[in-house]
């Protein structure tokens, strides 16, 4: 059994396909959604979205966003997204800059939150090489 998976960014639709499972970097931890998953609405942290369909496996880098899992399938709304092959450093540089600015602007518990986010983006950029 497969389910419909849509990955959209504000500028275009990146993927719309049938898949067996989707790995999502949820803000409270990574999880995989398969057909019949409980309806979940979650925000995403910067990370890798993995869409698996049969033996095909596609990885997308997302810099935060939002995902909705329901009986019809999975919708992923990502602000910046690209396939691993297409992703460039420049694309994430602006995201990183925004995160740095956020760290500087916030204080208290928000600051540690923003710092955590920045670390994640750094990790993501590192994984790009």
């Amino acid at each position, binding site marked *: 059994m497969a389910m419909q998976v849509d990955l959209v960014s504000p500028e275009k*639709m990146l993927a719309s396909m049938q898949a067996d499972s989707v790995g999502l970097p949820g803000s*409270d931890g990574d999880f995989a959604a398969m057909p019949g998953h409980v309806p979940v609405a979650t925000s995403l942290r910067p990370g890798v979205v993995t869409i698996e369909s049969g033996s095909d496996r596609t990885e997308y880098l997302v810099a935060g966003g939002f995902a909705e899992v329901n009986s019809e399938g999975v919708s992923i*709304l990502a602000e910046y997204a690209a396939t691993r092959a297409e992703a460039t450093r420049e694309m994430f540089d602006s995201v990183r800059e925004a995160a740095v600015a956020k760290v500087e602007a916030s204080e208290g518990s928000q600051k540690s939150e923003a710092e955590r986010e920045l670390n994640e983006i750094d990790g993501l950029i590192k994984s790009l090489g």
Partner: protein
Amino acid sequence: MPSLKDLKNRIESVKSTRKITKAMQMVAAAKLRRAQESAEAARPYAERMTGVLSNIAASAKDREDAPALLKGTGSSERNLMVVCTSERGLCGGFNSSIVKLAKEHIARLQGEGKKITILCVGKKGREQLKRDYEDLFIDPIIFEGVKRITYTEAEKVADVVLKSFDASEYDVVTLFYAEFQSVISQVPTALQLVPASIPEVEGEAAAASQYEYEPDENALLSDLLPKNVTTQIFRALLENAASEQGARMSAMDNATRNAGEMVDKLSIQYNRSRQAAITSELIEIISGAEAL
């Protein structure tokens, strides 16, 4: 009666104007196609965003602690008008129609004694509003030299709006832009950004989709609502870009046609006066010959 040379010069100048308007029309047509494509590409994101939000908002709206972006500040005293127009002219009534709609709103709200601030996005609208409302302006956002509207541009506008809202400077934020319908019709639209106008889901659908929220509902909402503002602005900017090119295309089409008519009219006049000149010359020769 203009001389033959004058007429000839005028015909030439109208012809070159026609060439320019024709070229502008074709450029606008090409740009319109691209603008329409990007407007369409942005649609799935905006639709899903609205879908998700209306699901969550339906349950959160009545709660006391719902974010202010959703339920408002409880007042409608201070209004921010975001007027999106183009950077260039020569696009028919495109800018004027948006400005006109904005002016109507401003006049109505001012009549009710409400406080108004205007944020102009785009140079042309600013020029038109300047005469009457310059003292209500805050720093405009101008996208001069920006070839293609991307999400980054929308973020710039959203940033200004959200920051000032967070600093509780305004109660209501309204966005003005032109919705693209077709090449000949662009509808100026006012869209309330804050408090968010989110379509209600029907009872059945709302009951069927009970979600688990991660993190909790409110955190999610306060994350999503600013994104929704950005998305709406992005959509408005894209609609505007398509509308602008559409309006320019039909304006230039009209101009080309008018120039063509003018060339025809002037050519007839030119031919007639040339004929008249020849005739009178002939008469002179003939009467001169007869006199001999």
